[in-house]
């Protein structure tokens, strides 16, 4: 019953909620980002990060530091925290936490299949995969030639199996089909997650609906913009949009027929929450659009912490950490390539 979760939530979820809120207090603040943006070398970054919670993970790294090492160690911290929470969780929180990984699994599957298509070595690809999305038998994805084999050999044993029903075909895998496969899988995953949250009810359903609807709408806009000028037909494009969210169904009708970014902007400006995002764009700069979407997402994720006794804080924390790792990667790349003037182009402050 909505409003009375406070009476029974703490039986199973109280300890973990308190832990995740403790982790949240360790997110980097604007002051930390200012210090990091003023670093001259990657060793300076390492020194600044040792004073934060990333200290134990970075202090043993030898001196010629690479950007990928920093990102890898920070991701390792996130994975450790996630595994710690997952092992302590009971149903339904454990299922909820598992759902958070499926997005990464989909990205890893697509990474390996694309890499194999371009004849890269499997070991090298496995190192680039996100650790949260690893599963057994992921390496045998390199063997598959078309989607039916992909499903039959590897994916039928993974949690992604139910998402494949819409995209099994005997076509060979090429770049276009892989992108379509990625978006179809992600659509099925988002809808499944949405249904699961609705079943949980209460504050979790309300907050997660908002967050997932924003995610679905953002992906719809990105799919539209990325498929302008490609061979993707309007019907195929419409099939990739999720069936929930603020844009469903009328926004999707308008987006499906868009042929350039100004038409997209015209379609989106009818929705007040997205009007502010699109008003920041001048003409056709997609990097600013990405940053604007990230800022909006971070604002909504921070709001999830305002309420107690629900599961959306776990989802919000994972997403905020991932945003922080993206920020660190951007800052490290700018410092490593001596382009410090561009540092603020893509860093989204969380607090």
């Amino acid at each position: 019953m909505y409003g009375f979760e406070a009476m029974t939530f703490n039986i199973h979820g109280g300890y973990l909620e308190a832990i995740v809120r403790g982790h949240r207090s360790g997110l980097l603040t604007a002051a930390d980002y200012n210090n990091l943006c003023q670093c001259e070398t990657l060793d300076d970054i390492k020194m600044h990060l040792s004073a934060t919670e990333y200290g134990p993970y970075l202090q043993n790294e030898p001196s010629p530091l690479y950007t990928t090492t920093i990102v890898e160690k920070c991701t390792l911290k996130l994975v450790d925290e996630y595994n710690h929470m997952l092992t302590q969780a009971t149903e339904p929180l454990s299922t909820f936490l598992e759902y958070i990984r499926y997005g990464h699994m989909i990205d890893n599957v697509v990474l390996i299949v694309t890499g194999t298509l371009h004849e890269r070595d499997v070991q090298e690809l496995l190192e680039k995969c996100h650790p949260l999305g690893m599963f057994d038998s992921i390496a045998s994805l390199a063997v598959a030639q078309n989607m039916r084999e992909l499903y039959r050999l590897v994916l039928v044993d993974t949690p992604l199996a139910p998402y494949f029903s819409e995209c099994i075909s005997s076509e060979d895998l090429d770049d276009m089909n892989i992108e379509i496969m990625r978006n179809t899988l992600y659509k099925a995953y988002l809808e499944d997650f949405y249904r699961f949250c609705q079943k949980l009810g209460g504050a979790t359903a309300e907050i997660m609906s908002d967050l997932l609807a924003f995610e679905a709408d953002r992906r719809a806009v990105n799919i539209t913009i990325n498929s302008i000028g490609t061979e993707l037909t309007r019907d195929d494009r419409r099939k990739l949009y999720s069936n929930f969210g603020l844009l469903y169904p009328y926004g999707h009708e308008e987006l499906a027929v868009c042929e350039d970014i100004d038409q997209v902007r015209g379609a989106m400006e009818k929705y007040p929450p997205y009007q502010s995002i699109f008003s920041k764009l001048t003409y056709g700069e997609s990097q600013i659009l990405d940053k604007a979407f990230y800022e909006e997402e971070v604002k909504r994720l921070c709001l999830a912490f305002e309420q107690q006794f629900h599961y959306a804080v776990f989802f919000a924390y994972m997403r905020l950490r991932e945003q922080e790792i993206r920020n660190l990667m951007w800052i490290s790349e700018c410092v490593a390539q001596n382009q410090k003037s561009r540092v603020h182009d893509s860093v989204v402050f969380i607090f």
Partner: protein
Amino acid sequence: MVASSSSWSQALVQISPYTFAAIGIAISIGVSVLGAAWGIYITGSSLIGAAIKAPRITSKNLISVIFCEAVAIYGVIVAIILQTKLESVPSSKMYDPESLRAGYAIFASGIIVGFANLVCGLCVGIIGSSCALSDAQNSSLFVKILVIEIFGSALGLFGVIVGIIMSAQATWPNN
């Protein structure tokens, strides 16, 4: 015997007043302890988790647990007071109106105290959980949220006061 026209009211007045009194005493202590325990586990689980990252909050936030415990103590005190009100009357007077009144008064007193303490314990527990989590993030919030908790614990006190007044006029007929 009380004049009655329906079989239900006849059945109710045939129940011994001691039954009602004893059930009232049981409810006063049993349900109060339920409320206190509920509040303590709600606060305790959040406090343990939050204290991992912020160990300084443990000693101050035990106040929330103490407020919940006070609720159980109210229940014990009222149960002891109520059981001193139970007196024996000869069986000829057991169904006198005054006897019935005494039995019902003790019953009502027990219910008042039990359920007031149940909701008070819940209230203090939930606020205590939020207090621990907020204190871990920002220590200036502790005292402010404690004020809310103090108002919450006054609810149990109201129940105790009314319960004791109620039971004070539970006089059995003279032997």
